[in-house]
């Protein structure tokens, strides 16, 4: 959900960072790189402060709700997506753009062509963004509140079960996550493998 919301704008930002040259571009890139490494609880804390009753967005009553968790997750995966799609577009030859343009593609169409050329790297970016989301506890816990059946997700459930001493339950949920991660990564690997073989 969060990944879908942030994918397109993040890839666009990555594209712009790779293709355009404006003063201060490297600062923006550095900032996104730094954000990628910020611990999830810090983002959670920031969001908590922003959304809590006394915070600037307090009137929206978003704290401990699903929208709050989604916002948190978007904040988490956005920098990852930006950095990885930036790298993806930078890895593409500048001749690809020129070839598309000289063969009659307008700018938007040429961008789509570039995204197609970078499709595997972009897919990997999506996966990395998704990993960031499913592997974090801190942010969901702080702004979602881990309310049963509403704002509890697998990682926060594991944290809860473990703190209650119910290790079996925690381990089972852990396996579910592991499986999910494995399936996704295998899917990507097979698509990529096919793409290179054909």
């Amino acid at each position, binding site marked *: 959900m969060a990944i879908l919301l942030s994918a397109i704008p993040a890839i666009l930002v990555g594209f712009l960072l790779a293709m355009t040259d404006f003063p201060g571009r490297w600062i923006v890139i550095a900032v996104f790189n730094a954000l990628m490494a910020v611990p999830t609880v810090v983002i959670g804390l920031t969001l908590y402060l922003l959304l809590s009753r006394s915070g600037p967005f307090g009137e929206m009553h978003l704290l401990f709700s699903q929208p709050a968790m989604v916002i948190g997750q978007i904040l988490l995966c956005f920098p990852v997506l930006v950095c990885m799609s930036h790298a993806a577009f930078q890895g593409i030859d500048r*001749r*690809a753009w020129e*070839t598309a343009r*000289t063969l*009659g593609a*307008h*700018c938007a169409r040429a961008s789509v062509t570039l995204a197609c050329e970078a499709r595997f790297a972009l897919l990997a970016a999506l996966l990395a963004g998704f990993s960031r989301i499913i592997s974090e506890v801190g942010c969901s816990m702080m702004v979602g509140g881990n309310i049963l059946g509403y704002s509890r997700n697998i990682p926060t459930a594991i944290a809860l079960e473990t703190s209650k001493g119910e290790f079996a339950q925690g381990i089972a949920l852990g396996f579910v996550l592991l499986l999910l991660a494995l399936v996704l990564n295998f899917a990507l690997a097979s698509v990529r493998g096919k793409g290179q073989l*054909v």
Partner: protein
Amino acid sequence: MGLELTVDNLVKRFGTRELFAIEQLQVREGESVHLKGENGVGKTTLMKIMAGLEKPCSGTVIVTPKQRRWWSGRIHPDVIYLHQTPYVFMSKVIDNVAYGLKLRGGSRQNIKIKVKQALVWARLEHLAEQPAHSLSGGERQRLALARAWILAPRLLFLDEPTANLDRHSVSTVAELVSQLLKQGTTIMVSSHQSNRVTELCTRHLLLEGGALHEGVHHENMPHEIDSMMEPQRYAQH
């Protein structure tokens, strides 16, 4: 009305270094131009600017008759630039060739027929279903030619089309280029030395020391070995 490309007071700098300054250059439809110059004098840069892919620091490049769409910017649809080492899209040869035509639209049937013709023309029909990345240098060059040919350009820039090719591929490319010339395509070829392709040209330009010189160079290096090998290139296909 014939296509005409006019260059006026063109200057290109990289940083503080001036690469070239060109006062006047006209290329008219039907011409075949050889742009000669040592490596690094800026042949590639000049051709990219003329094709609208790069911006000059000052000066203008005007192609008449104008055929501008709001989005096409400096790039004229009848002008195509081919890289020294062509970029091939990560797809099959056949999709690479169809790329430009699909952008223009038209019925699928029509596109299919034209792609087929282009593949036969460039002698790539046996590779149609191969991934374009598996092609050799000569085959990539032919792919690039087919990809442009299919759009029936009126002005074609060829950037050192033979620089990385073996002799056999050179003669195939030369053959294709001479067919383009017969079809009335205007061609500008860059090359640091004369070869089978530049021999087809009737007008010679020399880019040297940041300036462009006009001149008819009769190269005194006939390519006898190449001509002797000519019959072979049909035998192999």
